[in-house]
């Protein structure tokens, strides 16, 4: 279970203003919101990449910010993070990039064959042909393939929680659908808790158990996809309408 308790964060201006949110174990949760409302900031606080000015985050009851270094290290071992632009290490090939997803202590203890087997399996799970991509460096991969390698790196350590930061941004509709299916499938197969930050409302609603919407640093809505669609909140409706218009523009289907 992930628990956000009164999380505040400001940079030059307030980004998060007291977010309280609880995501249950095994849940696939989507977080929506306009750009700049602090979705990615909230996601990064989950594993201590950004420290809130006030409040705390708990993972299975362990405080991320008040539990000490050991607790933070344990939290990071439990969580797989999929970055918006994959954040692959430029100087490593795909095999070494995915290898980095295995916790350090485990990596030292495991026989090389077992490490290779896990990397191979992770790449297969994200629908990549390991024999084709393992030796390539990130600059030799397409955007969609880079995202998949980033996902492979996040799941190879057998995490209990997966955090997805805009996993479909910058992808064409076909790749977007494929990644959304992948999120849903991985959440089922790996039995992980997933928190997906996304702009893609349709995709998010289709795969999620529950959704929430952030607006100006506060939680505007939290409920099931059906409740979200039926919400009479003006801001939620305006966000849905705007997102639909943007999606139509992006796919060129607008008249």
């Amino acid at each position, binding site marked *: 279970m992930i628990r956000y308790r009164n999380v505040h964060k400001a940079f030059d201006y307030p980004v998060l203003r007291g977010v309280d949110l609880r995501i249950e174990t095994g849940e696939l949760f989507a977080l929506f919101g306009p750009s700049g409302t602090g979705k990615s900031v909230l996601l990064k606080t989950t594993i201590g990449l950004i420290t809130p000015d006030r409040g705390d985050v708990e993972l299975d009851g362990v405080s991320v910010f008040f539990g000490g270094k050991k607790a933070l*290290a344990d939290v990071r*071992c439990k969580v797989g993070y999929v970055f918006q632009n994959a954040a692959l290490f*430029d100087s490593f090939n795909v095999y070494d990039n995915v290898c*980095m997803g295995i916790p350090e202590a485990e990596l030292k203890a495991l026989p090389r064959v077992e490490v290779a087997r896990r990397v191979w399996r992770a790449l297969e799970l994200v629908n990549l042909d390991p024999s084709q991509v393992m030796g390539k460096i990130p600059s030799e991969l397409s955007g969609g393939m880079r995202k998949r390698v980033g996902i492979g790196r996040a799941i190879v350590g057998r995490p209990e929680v997966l955090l997805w930061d805009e996993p479909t941004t910058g992808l064409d509709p076909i790749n977007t659908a494929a990644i959304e299916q992948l999120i849903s499938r991985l959440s089922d197969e790996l039995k992980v808790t997933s928190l997906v930050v996304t702009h893609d409302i349709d995709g998010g609603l289709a795969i999620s158990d529950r959704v929430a919407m952030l607006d100006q640093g506060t939680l505007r809505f939290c409920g099931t996809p059906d409740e979200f669609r039926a919400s009479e909140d003006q801001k939620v409706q305006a966000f849905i309408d705007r997102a639909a218009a943007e999606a139509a523009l992006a796919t060129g289907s607008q008249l």
Partner: protein
Amino acid sequence: MSTFTPTVARDPGPLTRWFAGAGRRASVTVEHAGGLGSLFWKIVVATVRLRVNFRDVVEQFFIMGIQSVPIVLVTGSLAGIVTSQQGGYQMTSAMPNYILGSLVVQTVVLEMGPVLTAIVLVGRVGARITAELGTMVVSEQIDAYQSLGRDPVELLAAPRVIAGVIVLPLLVAIADAVGIFAGMLAANLTVGLGNEAFLYGARLFWHSWDLLYSLTKALVFGLAIPLISVHMGLRTKGGAEGVGLTTTQAVMFMTLTILILDAMFPPLMLN
């Protein structure tokens, strides 16, 4: 219908503006000093705990050291040649020619060798490190290291700083040797000073301490350049523009630091 009424902030006056500017600069300076101190301490801890990968240090040693040898040979030679020519022009007929040997050796070993090599490394190595780490910050690769439970200081900062501390004294030793040799050749060609006379002059005022002085300078510069470049690189904000801006700032910061440290050495070690 409400009307928009623009408001103009009251000018706080030149004195307040001056104090505000001075306060901001002081705050930034303290922030950098604290950041550098903290980074240095983390690197020391990582090194003492043997958390630094030896292969990474060797790789950085190759990039910073071996690949810098050609440019160090060129700058070292030119430093010796220029000193020899300038000295020859100013001193012939005023002093015995063999004094030129002392002048070239002392200038190259005490000043030109360490400082010119350090300045060259600021451009060749320091700028590269800042740009490389800055790019890793803006592309979230540093965040990725942390999210995977890896410490960027152990993996990225420490190998660069350790390699810098080892590499610079070696490069300065090369620059010193090449500079003296080139200066000797130049003295022979320009003022007709024979090699034996040149070496006689060189030995006349030579102290072993001078070499230690040169290498100590190199050691300190070798720590300062990668430390500042890593510190600046990890502080990068924004996209490509941020990387460019931070790299420029880092080069200025490193150059100034080298010159200030250089000015602090004579009162500390030569008196």
